[in-house]
């Protein structure tokens, strides 16, 4: 299922914790209910960001592998 993101954060080329930090900044700026997706070429971030999302109490919409990078889609829920 494809969800349209309200905001895309392109953190490709950055390593842990770069993509996570970029995502957190975006989440803080957006309103509750918004969908934010972060692009990461760093595989460990693609695995670790969902862990963070769970702990932080947001909703993981999904992790999608694209051409050489991952799209981690998150819904801000609080």
């Amino acid at each position, binding site marked *: 299922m494809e969800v349209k993101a309200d905001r895309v954060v392109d953190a490709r080329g950055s390593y842990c914790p770069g993509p996570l*930090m970029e995502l*957190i900044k975006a989440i803080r700026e957006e309103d509750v209910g918004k969908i934010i997706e972060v692009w990461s070429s760093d595989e460990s971030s693609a695995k670790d960001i969902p862990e963070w999302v769970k702990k932080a109490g947001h909703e993981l919409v999904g992790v999608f592998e694209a051409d050489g990078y991952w799209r981690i889609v998150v819904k801000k829920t609080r």
Partner: protein
Amino acid sequence: MGKLAIVLASGELEKLQAASIIASVASTLGNEVVVFATMDGLLAFRKDVVENKAWKTAGDLGKGMLESNVPLFVDTFRQAKEVGNLKMYACGMIMDMLKMSKDDFVDIFDDVVGVSAFLGMIEGAQVLFI
């Protein structure tokens, strides 16, 4: 998770990098994180050292980090202060001993404190000594 305190006593880049990543992620998950830079861990924040990227490295990994695109610990700590609940403190004893002031270091420290003040801040915290 509560409160996390990190004592940075090593000036080795690999250790500083690991500490900064753990601290920054912890600080964004509702934990209060307190970092105390002392000994060589404090000197790693000297302006001239940061400008010249003149950190000691344990080996090839650290050298690789300096050459590649990884965010370096100074920036990671700065970012954590922006997005999370993280405070950085410099050790006053080392500054006194070396006749240095806060101005000799990059602008990252919330305050210069002694050991007693630091121990007061970290009551009940989990402590990592790096």
